[in-house]
């Protein structure tokens, strides 16, 4: 444990030179992918990154063959990446051609090109391995990624790419925002939508090609999609989503590369993607506005409030002739609203715990604080009903239900506005109901 702890410390503080290169390089890559991925996701083109990376493989193989044929070792990285870029761009061009010359939709075009080119790449790699020289070993690194092989120059290339993308996206932020939100309107205003799309594609190509080495062509898509998807949960503003996505991407790259540096044989690309997925899961569950748990929580709070208000109002109305005092049998209470016996019992339990109702000799009755709250609720309900009848022209027979739907959200300000509006009709503390109360109304 101690050993692992000190190792972790050494990695995280970037003491080791090699680790420093790898961790900073992948962090820069994650950041770059997070930024450009934001726009790709919102443009609904995220999968194009996948097509691009998969079509890069035959380019890598062909570049190797060409360079080896010219007498070199064939594994000169810039040459391989140039091959990757060319065939990636060809793949995208092919998709565009299929889309515009046939009636196939984008997803079909994407599936065809992605699988055909990837298949061609795998076949070419097989041929290369059958050739005499064993120097082809390592080309598969592009499929799953091999960040440990990263050199300082590669890390610098990633950092430069990230910086360039940050600058370009900030400068063209307004244009890219419009492109992603409403391309039709953008074209009507004269923006060169096709060229902006190509510009985005060029940036994605740069990130993908540079990311091939670190995370591999299968998983580079994850860095383009997961960080922006996670960031979206935390904000409703594009600018913050952009920054958040960059940070999440950088963090995933950093943590993923560190962990895989610590544990031998853990493939870094996969770890990076899993870290990003972990952040995504946390965002999905916990983000305050859009996250699942806070939404569930808010929903539950509202439901309990509504149930409590129904209970208190029913109790008050049923014992209204006696001024809200006096007990009500459970069966009468059950018949009054469309609630099940279980729901009613649960609500009663909760209300008793809160000291709002008590059970005396088998009859349910309001406690003094419960009565106070019930009076206020009934008053609001009836004010609202009166308002609907007098100002919104709602029939008296329907008004109870409409008021029911809305009164739970009445704020204090709305109530005082209602009071002002209806001051002529309402003089008593709790006004009389503007309609006949339903059966089972009166307490015994």
């Amino acid at each position, binding site marked *: 444990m101690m050993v692992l702890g000190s190792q972790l410390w050494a990695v995280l503080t970037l003491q080791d030179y090699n680790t420093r290169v790898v961790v900073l390089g992948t962090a820069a890559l994650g950041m770059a992918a997070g930024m450009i991925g934001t726009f790709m996701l*919102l443009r*609904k083109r995220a999968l194009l990154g996948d097509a691009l990376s998969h079509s890069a493989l035959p380019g890598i193989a062909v570049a190797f063959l060409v360079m080896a044929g010219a007498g070199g070792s064939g594994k000169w990285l810039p040459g391989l990446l140039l091959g990757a870029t060319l065939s990636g761009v060809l793949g995208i061009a092919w998709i565009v051609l299929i889309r515009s010359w046939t*009636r196939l939709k984008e997803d079909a075009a994407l599936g065809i090109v992605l699988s055909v080119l990837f298949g061609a790449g795998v076949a070419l790699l097989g041929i290369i391995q059958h050739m005499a020289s064993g120097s082809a070993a390592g080309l598969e690194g592009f499929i799953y990624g091999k960040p440990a092989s990263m050199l300082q120059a590669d890390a610098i290339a990633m950092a430069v790419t990230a910086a360039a993308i940050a600058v370009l996206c900030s*400068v*063209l932020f*307004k*244009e890219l*925002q*419009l492109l*992603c*939100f*409403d391309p*039709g*309107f*953008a*074209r*009507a*205003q*004269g*923006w060169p939508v096709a060229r902006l799309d190509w510009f985005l594609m060029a940036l994605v190509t740069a990130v993908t090609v540079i990311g091939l080495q670190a995370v591999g062509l299968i998983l580079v898509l994850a860095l383009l999609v997961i960080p922006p998807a996670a960031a*979206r949960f935390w*904000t*409703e*503003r*594009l600018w*913050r*989503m952009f920054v958040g996505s960059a940070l999440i991407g950088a963090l995933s790259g950093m943590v993923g590369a560190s962990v895989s540096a610590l544990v031998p044989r853990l493939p870094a690309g996969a770890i990076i993607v899993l870290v990003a997925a972990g952040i995504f899961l946390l965002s999905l569950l916990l983000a305050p506005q859009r996250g699942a748990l806070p939404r569930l929580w808010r929903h539950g709070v509202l439901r309990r409030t509504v149930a409590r208000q129904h209970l208190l109002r029913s109790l008050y109305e049923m014992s209204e002739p006696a001024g809200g005092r006096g007990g009500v049998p459970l069966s009468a209470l059950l018949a009054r609203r469309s609630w099940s016996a279980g729901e009613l019992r649960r609500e009663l339990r909760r209300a008793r715990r809160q000291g709002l109702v008590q059970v005396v000799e088998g009859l349910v009755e309001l406690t003094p604080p419960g009565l106070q709250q019930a009076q206020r609720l009934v008053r609001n309900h009836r004010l609202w009903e009166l308002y609907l009848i007098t100002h919104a022209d709602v029939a008296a027979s329907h008004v109870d239900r409409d008021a029911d739907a809305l009164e739970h959200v009445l704020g204090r300000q709305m109530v005082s506005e209602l009071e002002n509006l209806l001051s002529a009709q309402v003089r008593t503390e709790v006004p009389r109901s503007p309609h006949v109360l339903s059966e089972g109304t009166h307490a015994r």
Partner: protein
Amino acid sequence: MQSPDPVAASITGSSTRTGPAPWQDRIGAGPEHSPAAPLSIHDMTVAYHRKPVLWDVDLDIPEGKLVGIVGPNGAGKSTLIKAAMDLIPRASGRVLIYGQPYRQQRHLVGYVPQRESVDWDFPVSALDVVTMGRYGRMGWIRPVTRAHRAAAMEALQRVGVGELAHRQISQLSGGQQQRVFLARALVQEARLYFMDEPFAAVDAATEKAIVRILQDLRAAGRTALVVHHDLQTVREYFDYVILLNMRVVAHGPTEQVFTPENLQKTYGGRLTLLDQAAEALRRGSPR
């Protein structure tokens, strides 16, 4: 924009009263086209995948009118305005906006696309969306300034949703979203507006608000072409109609063109719609 802005005032002034308008010495329009027409379409055919959806459209739209584009589903109503703005290619024909091709006159045109054409879950506020109407005149790279935001805010207030400016747009109702789109077109400060079904699925209050804005625009001498579905309200809302069913069946002042015979030609056997229209005509003033 109740008080006409100086640019528009100088343009409208020169076109109607004083000497030759600034564009009149560089028009390329044929003799059959009046150079001042906000929109003049000649012999336009539009096809999707070689299947024509609009045939031989010939139109001249007079200035300062509210123009309804009416026709059954698939009649090419949206296609007409999109082709006029070069958003979809034309197989043939010519479109002139105030005597010039669209690409030279973009700054004179405002656009309200169909509400469903965008993803309303996009992470922007109502104010952000309205500000987009100004991007065209801002140009590349220039950031959004306070003045642009102020103009956008004013437009939001004008359409009655000023207090929702900072809401994310998916938290608006359909009617409110439609108003945001209208506000975005208003800040374009155009002379000619294309609106694609602004009344589709909006509440009565929004419909009234949009009609009021349209009337304000007309009062300021602007022209609007509005794709419209509700035959009952055509007579009330529009001075001029284009009856469309892959071809222009008829176009002209509403009272002359919006007749049962023309509707019959436009809608063919679609009796339910025809009944509606006949009803509207019988009652004289709809609704």
